[in-house]
């Protein structure tokens, strides 16, 4: 006699235990601490904070540990945690021109006030495996030099003084928040930027790359790329003024894009903007390119039908937590649906076979 498959609950518990064991790996090898991940897997931590939309390196490191290094899974853990947090209030806008930069480069000017700082970058490393690291060699201290922190004005603002770059419209409007309101189209630029900054790095990179290869090409230069920490200020009602409540590390990218001018506007450069938590420059540059591509309507350009210009396409598919969930859900049982298709195909095949046979007999 057939006994229906039971025991889903036991199976789930057993799977979870096995997973925990696999996560730990060989117990003869020392366990990774959250602090080690936070300090030595910094760029992974940064990505998890950026796409998880929660600035907390310790929690991001914990999520990476729990997710066995699967960053999308780690981002998911952070998002699910973030959504339960109460909102105490809103900070003042971050002032990135007051950023304490560890890296600041411009591809459009050889030098600029505030100087160029390469910072801790992979850019000019030769990608040769360093076998010394396998032996856990300690690194010598990097050379240091005293600097006097000076102002680091935004480089694109120099172009703005000549009117060579389009001025962004000022707005005191509270930016929309797609984690609190359902996404509705057309989306304001602020909302698009929010979606891009928490969007999947791979997706945003692919979209940006497609614009460089000619799908809505917009000739981007990196006007400025800066990485550093910014103070976060909040107005405390009881005090009546704003105080520092902490600082966040950010990567900001402003691109300068060619623009031919339109019937109503003289030729002028335009901008794309990227701002991402942590040291995440690939993402910030990608974000700026996609932001620029999405601005075609506002700038009076043609819609070329390119994916990166298509707001609905980009915003609906940038979120890796939505994407991975829906993609992976096809693992769940679908036998009821499949059964109904099975019946339909059988019925249609029976009808088709009969029709063919009758046709053959007539011939």
């Amino acid at each position: 006699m057939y006994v229906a498959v039971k025991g889903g609950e036991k199976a789930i518990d057993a799977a979870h235990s096995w997973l925990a064991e696999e996560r730990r790996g060989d117990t003869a090898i020392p366990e990774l601490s959250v602090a080690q991940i936070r300090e030595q897997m910094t760029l992974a931590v940064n990505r998890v904070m950026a796409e998880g939309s929660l600035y907390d390196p310790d929690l991001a490191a914990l999520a990476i540990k729990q997710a066995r290094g699967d960053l999308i899974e780690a981002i998911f853990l952070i998002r699910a945690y973030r959504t339960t947090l109460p909102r105490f209030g809103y900070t003042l806008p971050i002032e990135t021109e007051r950023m304490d930069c560890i890296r600041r480069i411009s591809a459009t000017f050889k030098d600029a006030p505030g100087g160029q700082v390469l910072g801790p970058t992979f850019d000019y490393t030769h990608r040769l495996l360093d076998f010394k690291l396998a032996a856990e060699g300690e690194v010598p201290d990097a050379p240091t030099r005293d600097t006097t922190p000076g102002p680091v004005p935004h480089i694109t603002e120099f172009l703005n003084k000549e009117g060579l770059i389009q001025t962004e419209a000022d707005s005191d409007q509270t930016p929309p928040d797609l984690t609190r309101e359902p996404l509705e189209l057309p989306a304001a630029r602020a909302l698009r930027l929010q979606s891009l900054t928490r969007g999947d790095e791979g997706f945003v990179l692919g979209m940006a790359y497609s614009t460089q290869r000619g799908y809505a090409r917009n000739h981007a230069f990196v006007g400025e790329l800066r990485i550093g920490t910014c103070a976060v200020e909040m107005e405390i009602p009881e005090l009546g003024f704003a105080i520092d409540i902490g600082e966040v590390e950010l990567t900001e990218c402003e691109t300068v894009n060619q623009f031919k001018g339109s019937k109503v506007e003289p030729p002028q450069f335009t901008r794309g903007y990227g701002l991402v938590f942590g040291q995440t420059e690939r993402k910030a540059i990608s974000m700026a390119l996609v932001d620029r591509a999405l601005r075609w309507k506002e700038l009076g350009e043609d819609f070329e039908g390119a994916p990166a210009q298509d707001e609905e396409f980009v915003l609906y598919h940038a979120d890796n937590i939505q994407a991975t969930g829906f993609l992976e859900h096809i693992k769940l049982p679908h036998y009821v649906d499949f059964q109904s298709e099975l019946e339909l195909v059988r019925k249609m095949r029976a009808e088709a076979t009969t029709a063919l046979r009758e046709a053959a007999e007539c011939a």
Partner: protein
Amino acid sequence: MSEAYNFAYLDEQTKRMIRRAILKGLAIPGYQVPFASREMPMPYGWGTGGVQVSAAVLTPEDTMKVIDQGADDTTNAVSIRKFFQKTAGVAVTERTSDADVIQTRHRIPEEPLREDQILVYQVPIPEPLRFLEPRETETRKMHALEEYGLMHVKLYEDISRNGAISTAYAYPVKVEGRYVMDPSPIPKFDNPKLEMAAIQLFGAGREQRIYALPPYTKAVSLDFEDYPFEASKADHACDLCGCDTSYLDEVIVDDAGGRMFVCSDTDFCRGRRAEGHIGAQGAPFEEDAA
């Protein structure tokens, strides 16, 4: 019950926002109400929409039932039931008649529901027009203008190509003569049951939509006069309980192509066997036997 979280996991503000969407959905049957879906601790695609709707309608006195593919013991049904036991501390049941709130994926229970029950569906793609028009901006316009010609053309093309409408599940219905609605991926066998005494709520988490059918709302499966809608099922009786009117799963039982058919609604099948019905391969019912 876990003390670290609010009752049924979501905070009260979020539940209020969801309840408003539900009320709007009930006021405009079949209309997809956008709502600010939250990230849940289970992945999108696992029923986050249904879970949020259930969380918003559950009260501490309620008894809950969760089914997936008609069964209470499928892994995801077990997982969601556990979630509500943990975060809401509600009583749970496998018996359809004992449940106040039933969350379902892909089936409507065989046993008719009552006015004091709520059926919550998990919905993957709430938009019935999505596979004809991928753009949300377009499909919303089509609903607003009641422009459903494209759907009828699709059904017509099915017939001219295959001799039948080739939609077997998620078969679209027209609600009270106005909105075309996706009943979620239930087999079309279940479509006639959509007109029922219970409140039906549909939650799509990833797509951020909630819609509803109030009790006794008309939901007509789309068809043509000469090709009327047909609620089909496997042409067999259940091999365990002998029922020949329930929806059946086909189970492969050996590697020689042998198979049997069993009720997809496990509680319904159990109930019939408890009453003494025996199918072709069934054995007399014993509690907890299968």
